[in-house]
């Protein structure tokens, strides 16, 4: 609940909206970049007029984006942008067996749940961030919008650093072992392992059955050091039991077990992380100018809505965009998601007002 005095203190910076880039995708993949509007009403009118297939949101620029051609080259620069994360199921193709590329099912969707839990915890507790909006991208992944005032001003270098801090899985097609932990294990990693722990058995051992057959377990065993490998002729009959055996062997090596020179072995955690840890696309997060599909925009390829973390329910019937009576959306299956969004915006408004009032009180300016 908002405790700040409701007042005439404006919650947004003047002109902020006018400097924001929108981009529309029309029929036949026609892109319109650098659209901007003087008011939300104008945006609404334009949307009704051209009815785009897809809406993307870009940065807040130094000049109005629709006039970018009129200013001196180089003067037109992005100034602020939400910190965004894009987690895409295609990036997990080497570790999921149920689907590949753009396909998703309820089995592998657990990966997205894990990703959100891990990243969201770190955003709040480690990076000290408050305002995060998580949205289903509409096709094969999730987006996160971090909207804190200070974060919107972050430099590309700092954004890239945050993504690297939040990344553990490294390497492309030519890397077998993509997670390597060394002693001491950073608290961020430990806490991420704790999150994975909650889902690992259900998702990886039962769902994906990663130790179910020789072809499958070879992929896991390739990540375990030779001296820890159990003999292949073991009597364990399913993934869960095999994992227990493996884990017990690794754990035995941990506190002072193996030769000190080799250091403790974290192979079990490495496997868990390689199979479950979120894979972020750094390029989406790094650049200020990068566009990301707007929440609530229908994905043109699936007809799916980008709304808060649900997947599996049928796409809601779109309400007519230009309905004379705005609250009509409340009658559609979209209503609960709009509510989540409204609460998010309210939280931000409230925080901004609180901050403004605090500042003006400090200055003794009534």
């Amino acid at each position, binding site marked *: 609940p908002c405790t700040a005095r409701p007042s005439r203190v404006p919650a947004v910076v003047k002109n902020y909206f006018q400097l924001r880039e929108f981009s529309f995708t029309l029929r036949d*993949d026609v892109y319109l970049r650098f659209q901007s509007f003087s008011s939300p009403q104008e945006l609404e009118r334009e949307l009704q007029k051209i009815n785009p297939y897809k809406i993307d949101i870009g940065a807040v620029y130094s000049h109005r984006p629709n006039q970018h051609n009129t200013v001196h080259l180089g003067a037109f620069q992005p100034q602020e942008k939400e910190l965004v994360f894009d987690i895409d199921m295609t990036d997990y193709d080497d570790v999921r067996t149920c689907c590949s590329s753009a396909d998703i099912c309820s089995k592998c969707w657990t990966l997205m749940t894990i990703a959100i839990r891990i990243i969201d915890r770190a955003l709040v507790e480690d990076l000290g961030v408050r305002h995060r909006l998580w949205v289903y991208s509409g096709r094969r992944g999730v987006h996160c919008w971090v909207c804190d005032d200070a974060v919107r001003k972050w*430099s590309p*270098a700092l954004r890239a650093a945050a993504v690297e801090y939040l990344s553990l899985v490294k390497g*492309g*097609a*030519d890397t077998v072992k993509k997670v390597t932990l060394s002693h001491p294990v950073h608290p961020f990693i430990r806490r991420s392992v704790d999150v994975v722990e909650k889902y690992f058995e259900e998702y990886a051992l039962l769902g994906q059955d990663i130790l179910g057959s020789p072809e499958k377990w070879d992929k896991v065993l390739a990540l375990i050091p030779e001296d820890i490998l159990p003999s292949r002729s073991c009597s364990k009959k399913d993934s869960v039991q095999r994992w227990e055996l493996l884990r017990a062997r690794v754990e035995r090596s941990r506190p002072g077990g193996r030769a000190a020179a080799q250091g403790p072995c974290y192979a079990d955690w490495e496997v868990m992380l390689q199979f479950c840890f979120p894979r972020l696309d750094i390029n989406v997060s790094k650049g200020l100018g990068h566009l990301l599909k707007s929440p609530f925009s229908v994905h043109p390829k699936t007809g799916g809505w980008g709304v808060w973390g649900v997947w599996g329910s049928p796409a809601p019937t779109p309400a007519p965009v230009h309905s004379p009576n705005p609250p009509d959306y409340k009658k559609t299956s979209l209503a609960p998601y709009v509510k989540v969004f409204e609460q998010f915006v309210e939280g931000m408004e409230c925080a901004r007002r609180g901050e403004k009032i605090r500042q003006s009180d400090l200055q003794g300016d009534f």
Partner: protein
Amino acid sequence: MEFSSRERQKLWRLAGDRRDQYPHSLQFYLEPPTESISLVEFESFAVDRLKLLKVVENLGVSYVRGTDVYKTKLAGELRKLKFPYRALAEDDYEARRKDHISHFILRLAYCQSEDLRRWFLQQEMDLFRYRFNELTGGLMQKFLEHVNLSFEAIGEDLKNELANELSASTPGFSLPKVKEQMFYKVGLADAVDLFRARRVYIKDGFAYVPFKEIDVIVLNNYRTKLSKALALTARSLPSIQSDERLQPLLNHLSHSYVGPDYSVQKNTGKISLDQIDALSVKSFPLCMRQLHRALRDSHHLRHGGRMQYGLFLKGIGLTLEQALEFWKKEFIRGKVDADKFDKGYAYSIRHSYGKEGKRTDYTPYSCMKIIMSNPPSQGDYHGCPFRHSDPELLKQKLQSYKISPSGITQVLELVKGMHYQLACQKYFELTHDVDDIGFSLNHPNQYFTESQKLLSGGRELKKEFNNSGSFQQKNNSQESINSSSTPTSSNAKTDTELEELEAYFTED
């Protein structure tokens, strides 16, 4: 007409004592020099600093930074070139002035392109790191205050509360050591490198940095400042370029180092598309050979791969029309139809040839860029195979390319020492059956050009007969510096100076 150094000093004494201009042996180079200097001095300062930075680069490739050998060698070079090298020396005004002025001259020469800026930044950072770490604790503290980088130390209570976390987050800090050291609370933006690498504890948007890592913060701060300054300098460059005395010199300084950027093709259109398969085996460096293979196999490459490989092909002489044909032919064999190709991919190819958007004619990526930026992730084939492949897979790949077992061992040894470019050089030597290529490799297109020269017999290479198969750390560029760096007299004629510089760079 020149003043001798003593006369010059006398003149400055008359103008007032300017020693407090440089209160420390190192600086952030925030203020450009304002005095007038002679062209000859301008040039000799610039050449000396370039030599110094080149040494910094070579040492960084050959030795682990911060080791005793590294430090001794760098100190020796600083002394020889008359730059400040003793942190405590108070009476080195001349050296500090030279340091200051020469840094700013090279800024002018090295702000002109992204590759140049990257190189300059890297070497200046290494130099600064060495110098900063040579300071005594007291001087370090003074310097930090001087550049406004003092941070708030956390109290004992908080430190005890966080002790376990601090110890687990900070490599090399056991619990007792955490108790001993001071920790500082630093904003993420100031501690960006430590944050990125997860080398400190991060909580609520702050990094908890031990005193011993403060140098990383200082370096990070220095890099941000220098990087911004270089961008600003680049913007104001046109006014300097109109000065006909400086312009040729500055161009020479920058070009003589990094070598050509392979953006201008002498051989445009001399390669036909059906030659590429054969060339990829004979004359492509491993990174491009790998990309070519991946493209032929999967009929697709992701963005990073298209950029790295596409610009390389442009560099070896593919015209825009050829490039469009080449990529289209391959892509439509995969999942992309002709229509989608024309709409999506064709644009970015024209873009990279400077025909779309902001019309920048993009230059092919250098090794440095490939190794340092945008590492490949799932589904990518770009990057440097020596840097980004698992050693085991690299080994298999080399075996399949019929490299001898002893050759593979040598390559892997270099990879292990993080000498990726030297490893690639070794690969060149092995695949071309030469003992010493006689140049230092820093660009995939250079690899291609040299390979073509060699295969067409355009270049003679000495084949050593007493090759016993033993491998020695390559350090010939280093030697060439020592042998060619005769002290430059300030009366030297511009021409000889430039010639010397030329000789100096073509040697390695």
